[in-house]
């Protein structure tokens, strides 16, 4: 399946708006529903790409929810995933067979999470716990809060409830207040209203200045003197550089050392990251994490065709494509404030130029969009190329330690 179709993801948020994990599924292409074999292959592919032989689980504290079929319960690949970070999501119809139920109980006993879809939540508490750790609550219609109230009152203490689709922050708040535990929806692309960010704060002004200086290959001493105005920024910048593998081969302890080891170009990406995350309030972690994954994914997708040199630009294009929402500015205001190469501007404003199609493909992977296949085909990227880059970008975003 990983050779013929595409992995798409949706983030799961906890009530504190942190990204609890991701739901991964095969895109339902041309109305074709993934077969049992397809879904079995999903576990294998994920196990191979986010569980490193030496480094272990690359998604840190994130949980993966995977569309499941009974055949997955006995696949070897399931044992390669950390049970406490794995949740298999079954439709309740798949649990008709008592043998399947026994197998579900066995993996539950081994610590693997199981989510059940299609439950009648008014019947929660009737011996579901041996089979499930999560139940999925499907919201329909307009009065999500009213539905959530019904579900919350039926909640069984040992079962966690996942609400979907939670499409607005108002719905999110209603569900969180009523005790639901996790949420799936399109909130990763929606800025959190209330206490809005508008424009750049003093730290971000400093970062902006540094970005301009890096682009102009300004003297290291001058860069350091600007950075010194905000010691917290220096700390955060060095932390990013060191946690995400700057490629220096040893711990980088100063800006001067980073530049002398690697030059100016890689530094720019960390400044963009700092710019996105230096907001004191109003941002949402999920939006930020989406920006980082998008930037890295665009970079990895373009690496083969455009070479490593284009990587920094693709990363910047991906990050900047959500910077307007993170900063509470229009894209034009962002572009007025920050000088970017023409090709990056074309990508951001029209998804055109040499970088635009890669950015569009990275975005499509977040949205279960039918465009994924055609965008990849236009770039001569195979599903395997895209899927590997996607999981790699997801893992890389965790290594940055945004919420650490």
């Amino acid at each position, binding site marked *: 399946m990983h050779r013929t179709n595409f992995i798409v993801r949706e983030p799961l948020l906890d009530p504190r708006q942190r990204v609890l994990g991701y739901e991964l599924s095969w895109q339902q292409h041309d109305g074709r529903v993934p077969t049992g074999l397809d879904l079995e292959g999903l576990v294998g592919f994920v196990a191979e790409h986010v569980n490193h032989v030496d480094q272990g689980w690359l998604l840190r504290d994130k949980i993966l929810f995977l569309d499941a079929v009974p055949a997955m319960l006995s696949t070897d690949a399931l044992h390669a995933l950390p049970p406490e970070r794995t949740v298999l999501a079954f439709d*309740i*119809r*798949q*649990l*008709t*067979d*008592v*043998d399947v*139920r026994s197998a579900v109980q066995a993996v539950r006993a081994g610590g693997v999470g199981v989510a059940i879809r*299609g*439950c*009648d939540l008014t*019947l*929660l*508490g*009737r*011996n*579901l716990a041996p*089979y499930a750790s999560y139940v999925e609550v499907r919201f329909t219609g307009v009065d999500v809060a009213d539905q959530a109230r019904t579900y919350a009152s039926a909640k069984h203490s040992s079962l966690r409830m996942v609400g979907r689709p939670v499409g607005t922050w108002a719905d999110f708040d209603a569900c969180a207040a009523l005790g639901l535990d996790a949420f799936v929806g399109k909130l990763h692309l929606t800025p959190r209203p209330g206490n809005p960010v508008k424009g750049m704060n003093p730290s971000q002004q400093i970062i902006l200045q540094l970005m301009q200086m890096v682009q102009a290959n300004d003297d290291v001493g001058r860069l350091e003197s600007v950075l010194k105005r905000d010691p917290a920024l220096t700390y955060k910048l060095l932390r990013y550089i060191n946690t995400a593998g700057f490629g220096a081969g040893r711990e980088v302890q100063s800006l001067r050392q980073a530049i002398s080891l690697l030059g100016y170009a890689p530094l720019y990406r960390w400044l963009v990251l700092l710019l996105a995350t230096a907001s004191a309030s109003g941002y949402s972690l999920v939006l930020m994490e989406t920006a980082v994954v998008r930037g890295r994914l665009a970079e990895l997708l373009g690496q083969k065709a455009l070479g490593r040199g284009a990587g920094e630009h693709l990363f910047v294009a991906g990050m900047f494509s959500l910077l307007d929402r993170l900063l509470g500015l229009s894209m034009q205001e962002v572009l007025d404030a920050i000088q970017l190469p023409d090709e990056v501007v074309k990508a951001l404003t029209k998804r055109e130029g040499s970088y635009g199609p890669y950015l569009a493909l990275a975005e499509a992977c977040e949205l279960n969009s039918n465009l994924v296949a055609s965008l990849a085909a236009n770039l001569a990227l195979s599903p395997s190329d895209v899927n590997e880059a996607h999981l790699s970008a997801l893992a890389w975003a965790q290594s940055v330690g945004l919420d650490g």
Partner: protein
Amino acid sequence: MKNILLVDDLGIDVMLTRLALQEFAFDHQLVVASDGAEAFEMIREQRFDLLLLDIKMPQVDGFELLARLRAEALAGMPVIVVSGSGLAADRERAQALGVDDYVQKAVDYTGFKRELKAALVRQGCPAG
């Protein structure tokens, strides 16, 4: 509208049966009891058009409930046993206690639905 009492102790089985009934899209109201004792009290208090009954339950099981209903002359409604047991002895015992139909829970949902639907139609429920 058919007033149906479902007696089953297992949450998943209750949900699957309820789901199947919803998908048949006939006009019904479903009441659920989690064992024979609870069901017995409900039947004493209200009239049901159909009883969907599991056999293996803690405390008062399906057979015992049927025996009590007969003893109290409360067994007027059609009874469909919905059981995981395929044992001939269980079927024979159910028949002896006046059960109208016996649906063995299939290993897949589609099969279960098909069997349940056939039994409902035989018992006069217009399961579409």
